[in-house]
């Protein structure tokens, strides 16, 4: 570390604030990010790596005076793009990690209810697996509570396209699962 001119005007209080903000964001978004990355098909260690890389990027972003109106969508977008670097495993496992069939019936009381829950879960599972990657990504981000505008930022597509994808995908699942 060396440097003759010392830039005290660089707001240290802001640095501390940003560090605290980044820590808070990490605590809030780590689980949703891991969930999303798992949904994308990343292996556990890959998902952990992507989350850490993402928050390192966030730290640098904040330290370099980077501002973003919506940090949540920024974080998801970075994680999403970094997940693409694991394209091989992503393509292989996409759809395999979302597996609820064995768990769906656990809360049911009678054998009939268990059988029905299993059947519904398997139907939903088949329907989800049949979706296109972007359709599934939209639904996962929606399930994480992101607004259409945020989903659009994450996926790099227009907000109107997100609205169309969500609408047609929900209708598709409804037709396959609740007929």
């Amino acid at each position: 570390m060396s440097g003759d001119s010392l830039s005290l005007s660089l707001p240290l209080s802001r640095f501390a604030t940003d560090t605290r903000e980044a820590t808070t964001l990490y605590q809030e978004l780590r689980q949703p990010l891991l969930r999303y990355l798992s949904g994308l098909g990343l292996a556990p260690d890959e998902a952990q790596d992507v989350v850490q890389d993402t928050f390192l990027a966030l730290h640098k972003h904040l330290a370099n005076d980077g501002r973003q109106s919506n940090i949540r969508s920024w974080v998801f977008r970075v994680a999403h793009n970094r997940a693409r670097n694991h394209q091989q495993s992503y393509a292989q496992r996409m759809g395999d990690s979302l597996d609820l069939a064995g768990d769906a019936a656990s809360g049911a009381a009678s054998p009939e209810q268990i059988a029905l829950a299993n059947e519904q879960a398997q139907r939903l599972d088949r329907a989800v697996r049949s979706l296109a990657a972007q359709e599934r990504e939209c639904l996962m981000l929606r399930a994480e509570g992101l607004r259409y505008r945020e989903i659009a930022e994450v996926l790099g597509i227009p907000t109107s396209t997100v609205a169309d994808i969500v609408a047609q995908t929900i209708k598709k699942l409804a037709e396959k699962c609740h007929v």
Partner: protein
Amino acid sequence: MCNFDKYLIAFVDGELPDNEAAAVEQHISACDDCRACLASYENVSRDFAAYYASVAQSPVASSDSNSAFRWVPYIAAAAAAIVIALILVPCAHQTAQPSAQLAKVAPPAAVETAAATTEPVAQTPVAAKRRAPSRRIPQNATQPPSEPVVQIVIPADAMFPPGALPDGVVYVANLNYANGGAMPGYRLQQ
């Protein structure tokens, strides 16, 4: 299927403008088909959310909560620095001596470095020129006089997540800013 069907999911998601949402709400109160569709969309949305949430129960999401701090590399570096500082700082206090070879300069009020505050020592003009005025100076800092440094007291809880540092311990960060405000280095001490 009536024309309102295409708005139902955006309506469920609260994505419609207020006036359109009001129109949809008014319509579904009178349209059995749209009410049934709305219920179906809500059901499948809930089912997908539960399906998706099952991923959270995987070992990925629930594993190793300690990794929560791994993403901040300087925390690990700072922790190591703390250990080193706790070992070395007492030694530095014992061995530090004012240098008789240094020229007299302005009093510490003008050049506020930690080294200048503890002893009425002299500093080289070069060293003095290389120092920028600092705002808050720790009383027990041990930065070598020849190294340009800004020493600023930072509450530990402003730098670290809760629980990252031992209770009751206050640390001081010595920050060396490079030209252009590059990432500072930290040396923490008790």
